[in-house]
């Protein structure tokens, strides 16, 4: 075979700029037919952006894409599908009320003039499922299947389209070990059929098992493409994180006092269990792990946004039962959510109205909001946090992300919480605002507050936190002190290379 025919996909010099952010920088990525090619990297390394360029969701700012040796230009996902590129997403994208067969052939059912050849469709779906070795009845309603079976249907759907390239994004995140083995059999079969398989996973052990080649991305750049043979998980981790840890996070020194928030063996019956940690006055506890490890779920449950079904939460040594955010605020817990636009700000309201929202009752006499108190509260924080522009009457959604975030943090300080939980507080804000937010957090702990900070960004975790708890698959590790930590160690704990 010639080199050209061998090459299923050749992406060269791919860059993707978003205003102010370079998500991909000059990435070269080539995949051969009949191979499984793994893509690994930390959260935010550029994996998803690269795949979105590949499936036509994003147009690259620069660079060329060749599929099967011919240069292509894709403007929408349908273009990619026409070229034989199929994505299997981490989340199930199927219609629960349709049958398995209908889902497999959704959008391209056999038949003409709106007459559906149902028998043919079921026969073909059965053949595809059979070929993949999946014991699923094509007449079954999809919603009746288990998640892992649905995942297989999703793969069958992609396979039935006879693609040249299949992209699997974290396909095993909902599968048991046994089911993973079954999936790998299917992948090997597709590979032997000559399909190019791109396999995105955080689970390095699986990468070692299934992939022929691996490409490591970091900070939007391609670091290395290597044959999997001869590489170790440790090496991959080093390639994934290997950056200089510069001291851009000045750690303010705060006196560490008594334990403020202590959670013991809490669980929500679904996304996490047996999670224990404590955080003391003047201390910043980092909570990290891969996306989906259950970090935000823990925070939301402690704050009363979801239920804790087992274990105990204590504040200042007293057990508390938190059933609602109002109860959490009364107990002295505050929470800055991860999704600022979705959970953090009320977009139509001014900065002032957003800041006073949690403690409105205290600014009220005889039902009426005392506007002078309302104004002076927001003026105080706008000044203290140098929120820009310094105008409390401005609608909050007109501010930059960093300033919105400062306002969201400010709204909790008025409530004078004993413990503040920050979920990805610096995500999507620029470098300057990030430093300011770190400075604010430093001031808070210096004032004796206890802070829990969730972050996916390891340099931030290592730079800011006194102790760190790493979560994986809904379980938490022991807390580790700064001295015991390195990015490699955290990644090893997060990916399961080191037992927690």
């Amino acid at each position, binding site marked *: 075979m010639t080199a050209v025919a061998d090459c299923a996909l050749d992406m060269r010099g791919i860059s993707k700029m978003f205003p102010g952010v370079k*998500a991909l920088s000059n990435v070269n990525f080539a995949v051969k037919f009949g191979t499984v090619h793994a893509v690994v990297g930390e959260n935010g390394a550029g994996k998803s952006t690269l795949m979105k360029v590949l499936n036509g969701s994003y147009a690259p700012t620069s660079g060329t894409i060749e599929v099967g040796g011919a240069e292509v230009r894709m403007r929408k996902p349908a273009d990619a599908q026409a070229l034989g590129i199929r994505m299997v997403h981490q989340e199930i994208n199927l219609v629960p009320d349709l049958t398995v067969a209908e889902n497999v052939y959704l959008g391209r059912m056999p038949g003409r003039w709106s007459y559906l050849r149902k028998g043919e469709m079921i026969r073909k779906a059965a053949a595809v499922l059979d070929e993949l070795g999946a014991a699923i009845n094509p007449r079954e309603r999809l919603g009746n299947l288990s998640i892992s079976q649905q995942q297989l249907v999703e793969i069958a759907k992609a396979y039935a389209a006879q693609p040249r390239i299949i992209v699997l994004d974290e396909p095993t995140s909902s599968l048991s070990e046994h089911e993973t083995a079954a999936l790998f059999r299917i992948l090997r079969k597709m590979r032997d059929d000559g399909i190019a398989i791109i396999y995105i996973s955080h689970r390095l052990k699986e990468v070692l098992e299934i992939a022929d080649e691996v490409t490591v991305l970091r900070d939007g750049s391609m670091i290395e493409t290597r044959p999997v043979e001869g590489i170790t998980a440790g090496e991959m981790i080093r390639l994934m994180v290997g950056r200089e840890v510069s001291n851009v996070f000045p750690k303010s020194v705060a006196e560490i006092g008594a334990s403020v928030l202590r959670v013991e063996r809490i669980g929500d019956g679904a996304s996490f269990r047996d999670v224990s940690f404590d955080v003391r006055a003047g201390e910043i506890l980092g909570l990290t792990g891969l996306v989906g490890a259950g970090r935000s779920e823990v925070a939301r449950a402690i704050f009363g946004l979801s239920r804790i079904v087992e274990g105990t939460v204590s504040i200042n040594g007293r057990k508390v039962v938190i059933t609602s955010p109002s109860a959490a605020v009364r107990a002295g817990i505050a929470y800055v959510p991860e999704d600022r636009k979705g*959970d953090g700000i*009320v977009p139509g309201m001014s900065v002032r109205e957003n800041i006073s929202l949690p403690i*409105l009752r205290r600014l009220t006499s005889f039902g*009426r*909001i005392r506007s002078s108190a309302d104004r002076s509260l927001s003026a105080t924080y706008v000044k203290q946090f140098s929120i820009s522009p310094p105008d409390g009457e401005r609608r909050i959604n007109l501010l930059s*992300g960093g300033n919105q975030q400062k306002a969201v943090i400010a709204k909790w300080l008025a409530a004078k919480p004993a413990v503040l939980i920050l979920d990805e507080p610096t995500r999507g804000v620029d470098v300057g605002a990030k430093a300011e937010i770190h400075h604010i957090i430093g001031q808070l702990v210096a004032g004796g507050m206890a802070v829990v900070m969730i972050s996916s960004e390891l340099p931030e975790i290592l730079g800011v936190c006194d102790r760190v708890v790493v979560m994986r698959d809904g379980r938490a590790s022991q807390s580790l002190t700064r001295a015991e930590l390195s990015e490699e160690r955290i990644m090893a704990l997060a990916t399961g290379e080191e037992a927690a």
Partner: protein
Amino acid sequence: MTDAAMEISGTNRNDRFTRGSRLVDMLSKAGLLLAILAVVLYGSFSSPAFFTTGNLLNVLTSMSIVGIVVVGMTFVLVVGGLADLSVPATIACGAILSLGLQPMIGPVPAFVLAVALAGLIGLLNGVLVGYAGIKPIIATLGVGTIGLGIVQAAVGGVIVYGSNTASAEFAKGRLFGIPVVVLIFLVIALIGHFVLSRSFWGRWTLATGGNYNAAEASAVPVKAVKAGAFVITALASGISGGLLGLTLQSARPLIGSGYEFSAITAVVVGGVSIIGGFGSVPRAVAGLIFVQLLTNVMVLEGVRTPIQGFVLGILIVGAVGMDAALRKRGVA
């Protein structure tokens, strides 16, 4: 990087409240006042009957009965509760009970009890929508049907007549030359305006409608706030129904039909967002005045009923369409 992308697309998008839209916003406010003025001018020139004390007082009185409902409905729309379709039932509850109970317990207790029971219907709506998470249209439609059935069964007959002349005269009377019903509407509108724009409950209502999740994460009791809007609407409709019954001195079960549509039309034409988070009582009242005057002019001009419906339909679709267009460029 996905997050970075989301962040960018979020900040780049024009919001409902960016400067460009603010112009639209101001225009929509002034626009409504201009439209009201235009209707008044047109009416004065085209029909000698329009600009007479008698006609205007008539419009004002009938407007006030709907207007009391409009004040409540504003809360439902602002909180993101879409619409309360149980209004005909709560009006009937107010009207039938405030007349039907008169012989047993006297006019004032009858009125109070009627309003309280209407409020109970609202509470049921509120619990279903706010706490059980049932879609408002379905919940209020179902509860309204049930409520109406119970009220009818309780009074037995089909039409209830008033038996207390003093209360009838009070409701039909005037104070300083202004009909009592109008004064009551003004007081309720002022209270509604104060609650929505100055009180913590109003701020909570706006926050819940503006971003339910963020309000919840800010320790706002979102479920109670959502339920509260339906209680407020039901109480307002109960009062409205009671006054309607006292004015007419008779009440049949379908006395309130059509009021939900009139109230929603007024609120939406007033520029209150149908998706919630934005709006005020004065805006809704301006919408009400416009719609009522327009209807009155059409009646005086002899415009046939189907055409009137056609015009009102266009108004409501136009207003909702404008809201959707603003949203599309905005938060959505």
